[in-house]
């Protein structure tokens, strides 16, 4: 029987289907793996109430466990405490940037909480001369920006 840490490593293979460079662990969707008396329990949490990728990620977790020969498991979905973009780890933030998505501002940034726009750097050229096009982007978790310097549009993983 693999340990909880080994299973967590195994689940590194499960990616966000909409941002396939980032794993559910890096995204903070994977909350906990525990092994009790031979039963594996994996706890996941949705990023948004209506995140359409959630069912897919659950299926991928189940498939990955089965492929590793683990049959006795349970995938539990919890809502509380609510997922926040602060749970995306540094590795995840770096990968988002490389993928062309500006990582989210930290929610503790008071400007974010007040609804003011903190400066967002363009993931292509690094300029902070950028402008919000829409609070709602290609998926529930993203906002649409454009860069005034290199003229490229880009997604921002929005603060939540």
């Amino acid at each position, binding site marked *: 029987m693999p340990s909880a840490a080994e299973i967590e490593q195994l689940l590194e293979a499960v990616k966000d289907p909409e941002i396939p460079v980032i794993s559910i662990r890096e995204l903070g969707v994977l909350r906990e793996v525990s092994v009790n008396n031979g039963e594996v329990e994996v706890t996941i949490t949705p990023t948004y109430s*209506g995140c359409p990728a959630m069912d897919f990620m659950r299926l991928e977790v189940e498939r990955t466990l089965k492929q590793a020969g683990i049959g006795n498991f349970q995938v539990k979905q919890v809502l*509380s405490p609510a997922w926040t973009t602060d749970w995306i780890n540094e590795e995840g933030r770096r990968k988002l940037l490389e993928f062309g998505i500006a990582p989210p501002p930290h929610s503790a940034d008071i400007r974010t909480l007040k609804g003011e726009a903190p400066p967002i750097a363009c993931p292509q050229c690094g300029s902070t001369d950028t402008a919000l096009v829409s609070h*709602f982007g290609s998926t529930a978790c993203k906002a649409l920006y454009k860069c005034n310097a290199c003229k490229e549009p880009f997604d921002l993983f929005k603060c939540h």
Partner: protein
Amino acid sequence: MNQQEALFRFALRMGDNALVLGHRISEWCGHAPALEEDIAQTNIALDLIGQARNYLTYAGEVEGKGRKEDDLAYLRDSREYINALITEQPKGDFAHTIVRSFLWDAFHRPLLNALANSSDERLKGIAEKAVKEVAYHLRHSSEWLIRFGDGTEESHRRAQTALDELWRFTGELFEADEAEQILAKEGVIPPLESLKAEWNATVDRVLAEATLKRPSEGWMASGGKKGVHTEHLSLMLAEMQTLQRSYPGVEW
């Protein structure tokens, strides 16, 4: 009515409100005035329908009769839906949609803020998640309303017309039924009238900036929360439920 029955009814209502409004907003998919707005409205609809799933699943569990989210969403007639009337009104023109969303969002956010401290763990969890989504909804509808009201003569006229037409559905939001009175007494939900001050403040602030006139109080429509609806809900449900009614038990 015992507390469990009250909780079932409240979770069901929260689910119905989110589902009906989410469906109405989703009607803009492919029809919104600009591409970015099409994406925004469908994202908002998706948030609401996701919230509805959480509430309806919980309602089914509290009821304890084995009904799942899909049974509650697709196999109830309009008389069994207990959403507020404002959520079921047709989408109208885009000003109408924005005004309705704004009046609802300004109520929804303080409600969820309070529910995020509920003594009921499940409601608390759903609200903690949803309140962050709804903060974006309120900001979006407020920005549009200000743009319409303080925009052209035509956009101002349309926004004011929508406001005058929809105002009569706002009173019902704060009318607590028996279930809501029981739960408020137990500290599970806030007393609905306690949300009025924040709602008033938001409405007055945004309307002032939008140069729109707050309608006088006057007669208020109600009944949706008791299952007595405007004709629009039946028509909406007929469309929304047609697949499940035609092919019982079908799964996507």
